[in-house]
């Protein structure tokens, strides 16, 4: 089985997000980027499938810092790693990259395409359905367990409240992974250093072919709320302070 895994680099949410001048995107110049967490699970699921029944795993990464993540993917067990070039300083749109992913799936004779169910820049979770549609392959999103038996996949999907359904589908297929069957493994620094010699392939993007449907007209950052106040540890002073705050807000009589 040939598996293609998509790894998207997204802005590090712990960083300070600032709006770009156009007010419709975030200023990416000073940001750190990290691997989309769901994509990390997709990679793990691909490696688990490889370990369970044998597979060739190709990881394709897109975005800033792709090389570093591809080395990590190689250290985890990916057989081939490819950096998909993307527009610099722009968010990764699923609509934009779906055609490139589909083309690569064909070129690599993939039987299975795995990606994270969504990313912070694709909360619709559009990548898996777009790629599935372009390839005309079946697609399931929100998976938390994938078992391969030859060309037949059993895919478990979480539906909340503890409800889970299991689908059976034939490859080729596209799956949007919510969580891997096991938490992503740790890969040691010495393995990463070894993997830093792995050759990284390059892929140029395909034109998306989609007409524009909707566009972002405004982006808003969370408004800084009032800061909290530490009332201290002494019960008496805490009580005094609490009473005076409530009184000041007109919620209690002093």
């Amino acid at each position: 089985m040939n598996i293609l895994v998509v790894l998207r680099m997204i802005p590090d949410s712990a960083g300070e997000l600032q709006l770009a001048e156009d007010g419709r995107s975030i200023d990416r110049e000073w940001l750190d980027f990290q691997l989309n967490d769901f994509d990390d699970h997709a990679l793990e699921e691909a490696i688990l499938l490889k370990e369970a029944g044998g597979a060739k795993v190709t990881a394709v990464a897109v975005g800033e810092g792709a090389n570093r993540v591809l080395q990590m993917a190689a250290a985890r067990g990916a057989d081939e790693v490819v950096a998909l070039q993307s527009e610099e300083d722009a968010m990764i749109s699923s609509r934009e990259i779906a055609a490139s992913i589909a083309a690569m799936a064909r070129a690599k004779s993939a039987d299975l395409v795995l990606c994270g169910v969504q990313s912070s820049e694709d909360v619709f979770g559009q990548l898996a359905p777009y790629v599935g549609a372009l390839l005309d392959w079946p697609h399931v999103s929100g998976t938390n367990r994938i078992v391969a038996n030859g060309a037949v996949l059993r895919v478990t999907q979480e539906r909340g409240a503890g409800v889970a359904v299991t689908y059976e589908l034939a490859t080729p297929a596209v799956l949007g992974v919510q969580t891997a069957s096991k938490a992503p493994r740790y890969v040691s620094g010495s393995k990463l250093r070894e993997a830093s010699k792995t050759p990284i392939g390059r892929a140029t993007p395909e034109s998306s072919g989609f007409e524009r449907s909707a566009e972002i007209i405004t982006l808003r950052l969370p408004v800084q709320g009032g800061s909290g106040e530490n009332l201290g540890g002494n019960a008496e002073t805490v009580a005094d302070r609490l009473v005076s705050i409530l009184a000041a807000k007109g919620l209690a009589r002093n």
Partner: protein
Amino acid sequence: MASTLPLWILVITALALTAWRSRRYAMALANAPAAARFDRPMLRLQGVMVAIGMHRKMLRKPLSGVLHAIIFISFFVLFTATIDAFGSRLFPGFSLAPIGGETWIAALQDIFSALMLVGVGLALYQRYVLRPARFDGSSGSDAAIIYVLIVLIVASLLLEAAARIVGGSDGSWRPVASALAGLLDRAGMSAHAGEELFYWVHIGAILAFLVYIPGSKHRHMFLAAPNIYFRSLEPRGLAPAVPEAREAPGIDSLGQFDWKQQLDLLSCTECGRCQAVCPAYAAGLPLSPKLLITDMRDALAAGSSAAPLVGGVISEETLWACTTCRACMEACPVEIEHLPKIIDMRRHLVDEGRVSPGLQEALSNLIRLGNSMGKPSKMRARWTRELGFPVKDAREEPVDVLWFVGDYASYDPRVQEITRKVAELLTAAGVDFGILFDAERNSGNDVRRAGEEGLFETLAQSNIDEIKACSFNRIMTTDPHSLNALKNDYQHFGAAFEVLHYTALLAELIAAGKLDLHVADGARVTYHDPCYLGRYNGGFDAPRELIRAAGYTLHDMPRCRENSFCCGAGGGRIWQGDDGVTERPSENRIREALSLGDVAYFVVACPKDKVMYTAAIDALGVADRLKAVDIAELLVPRTSQALEMPPVETS
């Protein structure tokens, strides 16, 4: 003499049995990887003299030390009796008499036989009456068998001499045996039969002892001296590198340990001094440094039938429990190296990806961002924003002091205030300093001790490259852990920086009269020696000088300086959960400080300590009685407002 042949047969049989019983150990050592422990013979010998001749570490526990010294010296004196006993019958005509065997040597043997019994009596009193907890898990039967054999050897020696005196020998040089001769005489035993009986009991007990030793902790009689001689002479803070001949970074079988690491296992005396000082053991975690060693020793004896080493003989929980505080190695009288073994086995676990979720998150953050908190590099120097002055970028302009701030001092909001205080003190003293801003990475000290050698190399190389590109004279660190990495571990990469802790630099500035401080009125405080400043790098005095200079009176806790008790955060423990902990080491330590009864400040000199002890004081609900303050908070320049000391209720 008719007994010569039977004695030869007995001796040769006993020696053969002893050799047979030692074979597994001998083979293991012979096949072990090499270790470079043959340099500097005079220094090595000197260490042996101090450790054994002076009983330096032994005497830290006075009763044990004294009773061991008595038994030890008596053994040497009585060895003359052993030579006499075997020599006289193996080689007819041999006698010590010409050099005083019947006079002064006889007197010494007589007196030291009695002393030996006193020593064994004290040992019995300690083991069976006092019963120190450090013996928990040691083999009780092994100790008992040895007591019995020693008493047999000494008693038979005395009684044999007594029997000879009954038979008409001169007893004037043997007061104890003479007294016993009176008893024997009254018992009506024939002098010749008695002498023969006690001689063979004596010979039998000695040979039994010899044959017994290879399977007993009493191997240390032969192995303690070599184990101390071949001790590590590297700086204490330098974790052993991965040998080039080793294929993987870690170790997962005993045979991969070099011969010195294996010799350690055979030298253990089961005294339990390591166990008594171990913070993980005290916290109820499944780690006793003593059992770590004896479990591996037993596996070595079992050979190929033993369980797999990592995860079998030594559980993963045991390995992760260690804080790498080094108290065990400091306490060990025979210089056993616990930490290199733990780190090598952790290296194996990390290489296999067998790490807890907490550790995985911290290490992943370190790989990605160079700090364990998962904060962006660009926020590393944010603490400088609230200073009233700019901090130099050491990458841009030359500085006298390059300040390596460290993760906790940079990012942790509980510590940033102290970091700013240090910056203000340096400025008040006119120090020309700068920092690396977002180019600084975690020093890798605890990463390395968590077994992540590859990541340590990446972090260290990145820091070394950045530091080497700067122009400076000395490096100062806030964190003792960074101090240790930069000063010791970075030597692996050929980096030899002059690194000092901020307490050392501040003490130097005060001594030079460059810092004019408010002087408190002698209020009493206590001070916690950080493991990586004190035990690892000998930084005991500078912090104490600072406390004195600020006008406080230091009331040390019982466990201070080399015997300081770890806060529980080191060696990557700060990234692990508290599962299985019955009492946090930090809370144990706060109770110790409270028991002093007269201190209001718990003074620390490590950012992790500020975090750990503030949390411990809150958890114990004693914030009204004790406050964890960094030493920099006590030092207030005269230009600022003096510190107000909270009132203390003394108990």
